[in-house]
Every structure is written in structure tokens, then in C-alpha cells.
């Protein structure tokens, strides 16, 4: 049977791919959970666009510093080696290609790497972009983590995005509850699928053509 990953399991799976020494920005929401699952002993430097490098574990209850929070407004700690800077320097890091990986959620990803994750045209809310466009465009690699399909069961990986874009041809890898998919110059390549899933099954819930990597593996994650 095909057991889909939970959101935390997606975060866990993505975290395994963050190599030692990378500088990684985690988008607000679900991506922020990724930092909990970096393998012990591996140093990954987490960046927050409000001017922090080297974010450590969440502070213990009662030990929060109200003047040290991430871009999701959660209390944080700094690791030894952490540093602080202002917004223009922070986005010099982002826009200038100094961030190795950013992790973002998505409404839609296209097979050419286009990303839509900031606005639903029919929303009554004011349009809010934050740092999403800067990160999508500036980071060396953009990892998307999301459910493979929308709540209505529609594919979110598409030939072409229908929603207003966040960035062009920027997504490098997609981590979903069903698969890990990389983008190469020819399109989308499935690197991992959950147990019981085959390419035809994955293709049936995907709006863009998928190829299977030669050495694809089963996508699995511990219970979290």
C-alpha cells in the first residue's frame, strides 16, 4: 500500500539532503520545521531574512529572548558562530546568490521550475509577498516542500503554472508526501517514490511529465 508522508516526514526527508556547511533559508510555516531534522553532528547554517545567521535549537520554555526571533516571529537561539545584520545585508546574501538552499512551500510548480506560492487571485486578502520572490530568485537552489496534490486532489506540479508566479525557472527539487523530484535541463526526474507507488501512479496525480531516475529509491521517513 502507498503510505503518504506527513508534513513533518516531508520536512525530515528534505533535511537529510542538507549537506554540512550549507547556508539554508527556511520559509515561514512548514519549512521552518526542517531545522529539527538535520542529522545530529551535521552543521547546517540556517539563515533568517530578518538578519540572523546560525540559528540554533528552539529555546526552552521560559528562556526565550524577545529580541531574537526568526522571520516567522518564533523565538530562536543562536549557535556559536551565529551573527546578526540588517535587512540590506541580509538581502545582499539572498539576492547575491550567497544562500545555498532556500526551502519554500508552493501552490504550484511547473516542469520548467516556475514557482507560484504567494498569491491566490480570488483571495480577499491584501497581496503579500514578503521575501518569497527574493529567495526564489536569489538562492542557489530552491527546494519546494508541499503536498503532492491540493486539498481538492488536483495536481500541484504542472506543465505550466496557472497562478501568478513568484519566480521563473527557479525550483531545483520538490519534496512531496509522495515523491522527491529533481529538475534537470530536460524536465522533472523522480528520485524517490513512496513504497507501493509506481511511475504511472505518480504520473496520474502530476500535471507535468515525469521521468524515473535510473537509480530511484523508495521514499521513506521515520514515524514523527
Amino acid at each position, binding site marked *: 500500500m502507498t503510505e503518504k508522508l506527513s508534513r513533518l516526514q516531508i520536512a525530515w526527508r528534505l533535511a537529510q539532503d542538507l549537506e554540512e556547511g550549507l547556508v539554508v533559508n527556511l520559509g515561514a510555516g512548514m519549512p521552518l520545521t526542517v531545522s529539527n531534522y538535520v542529522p545530529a553532528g551535521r552543521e547546517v547554517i540556517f539563515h*533568517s*531574512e*530578518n*538578519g*540572523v545567521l546560525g540559528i540554533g535549537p528552539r529555546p526552552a520554555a521560559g528562556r526565550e*529572548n524577545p*529580541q*531574537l*526571533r*526568526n*522571520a516567522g*516571529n518564533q523565538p*530562536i537561539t543562536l549557535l556559536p558562530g551565529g551573527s*546578526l*545584520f*540588517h*535587512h*540590506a545585508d*541580509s*538581502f545582499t546574501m*539572498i*539576492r547575491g546568490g550567497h544562500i545555498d538552499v532556500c526551502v519554500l512551500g508552493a501552490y504550484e510548480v511547473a516542469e520548467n521550475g*516556475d514557482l507560484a506560492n504567494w*498569491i491566490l487571485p480570488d483571495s*480577499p*486578502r*491584501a*497581496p*503579500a*509577498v*514578503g*521575501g*518569497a*520572490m*527574493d529567495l526564489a*530568485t*536569489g538562492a542557489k537552489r530552491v527546494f519546494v516542500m508541499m503536498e503532492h496534490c491540493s486539498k481538492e486532489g488536483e495536481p500541484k506540479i504542472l506543465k505550466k503554472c496557472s497562478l*501568478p*508566479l*513568484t*519566480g*521563473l525557472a527557479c525550483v531545483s527539487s520538490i519534496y512531496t508526501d509522495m515523491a522527491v523530484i529533481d529538475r534537470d535541463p530536460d524536465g522533472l526526474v523522480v528520485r524517490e517514490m513512496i513504497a507501493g507507488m509506481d511511475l504511472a501512479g505518480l504520473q496520474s496525480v502530476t500535471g507535468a511529465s515525469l521521468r524515473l531516475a535510473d537509480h530511484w529509491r523508495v521514499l521513506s521517513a521515520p514515524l514523527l
Partner: protein
Amino acid sequence: MINKIVSSLAEAVRDIGDGSVILLGGFIDQGTPDRLLEVLAERRPRDLVIATNNPSVNGRGLAVLMQAGCVRKLICSFPRAPNSDLIEDRMRAGELELEVVPQGTLAERVRSAGAGIPGFYTRTSVGTPLAEGKEHRDFEGETYVFEAAIKGDFALINAHQADRWGNLVYSGSWRNFNPVMAMGARITIAQVREIVPAGELDPETIVTPGIFVNRVVRLED
């Protein structure tokens, strides 16, 4: 003797007039100049243009100024907050203009103004609705969009410590947009938690040199 310390919040914002462009430091509710904004709201200036990362999320500061009907236009990256109904309602009523700007573009547009640079090119937003109507240009095979500087008449910021020359240091992630906005305005006004004698801040560690700061006011405890 140079002394940029003023004795009250009201004195600090005394000359912010109708139609002023005001840059705000702070991010979410980290290091926002709430007290300056609240005292400004008492004076009921009209038609202010506010550049800030986001609206007030705690009902303080900018929320008070907006509720007082002082704001005509908001330039920001994330115009959404627990109280952003206010923004949306006023937008629908045609009483508030909103310009959405990517966060890093906002920071750089203000820094540019402070650095005598009328605008710059960035790849950020190319291919998105936020680039529509802007000049596009290719450099080495990549497409960029031109973003114009945002010069403030005033900047209202929040800092940890100051001295009488206006030198500032911040604390933790409350630094964020504050030093950037300080560079981009004609007159920069800082609310600070502590004032120390000149010479007490280590010159190596001053984040905003006093050249960028015109007035400093200490918050009452």
C-alpha cells in the same frame, strides 16, 4: 555641544507634516517604532506615505496611525496581519493605496536613496505581476527589472542604545530594517531604550553611525 537627544516623543515628531513619506524600521513586531507612531497619530497628520515591511501586527504603532486615518499609501512587502482587515477595507473604499514590493527590493530601494543611487536592477520579481509596467533590461543573458529608490522625508526607527551624537546599536533580530531606513531619510528619528554617554559605545560595534540620525528619544520605562 552636539546633542541629538530630545526630551519627548512629541518633540521628536514635531515637524512631520501632511503628505510626508515616512520609512519605518521594524519587522513583524520586532523593533518597531511604536511609540513614535502613536504620538504622531495624536497630531493627526494627513495623507502620509508609509514604507514598511508590514503593517502592525499587535494593534500598536502603525495600526494606531492608520486607525486615525493618517495614511494615504502603504509601500510594503507583507501587508497582512491580524488587523489587516483595516488595510483591506480601506483599500476597497479607495482610501488607501497599496504598493507591494518584495522584501529585499524594499530594503535596497531605501538603501539606494540613502546612497545617492536613483535606482538599481534586480532579477527579483521578473516574470511576476510585481514587475509589470517596470523597465526590463538584459545583462549577460539574464533579465532584470529596474527598481527606483524610495527616499523618505522621515524615518522612524527603534534601537537599543544611543549616544548624543546619534550613534545606535541594536539588539538581536530587532536590528532588521532599522539601520536601512535610517540611511534613506532626510530626517531620522530613533526611539531607544537607553542613552549612554558619548564614548561608551565601542566605535567598532556601532551599527548606525550618528551621521544617519537626527533625533533620539528615550522611551520611559
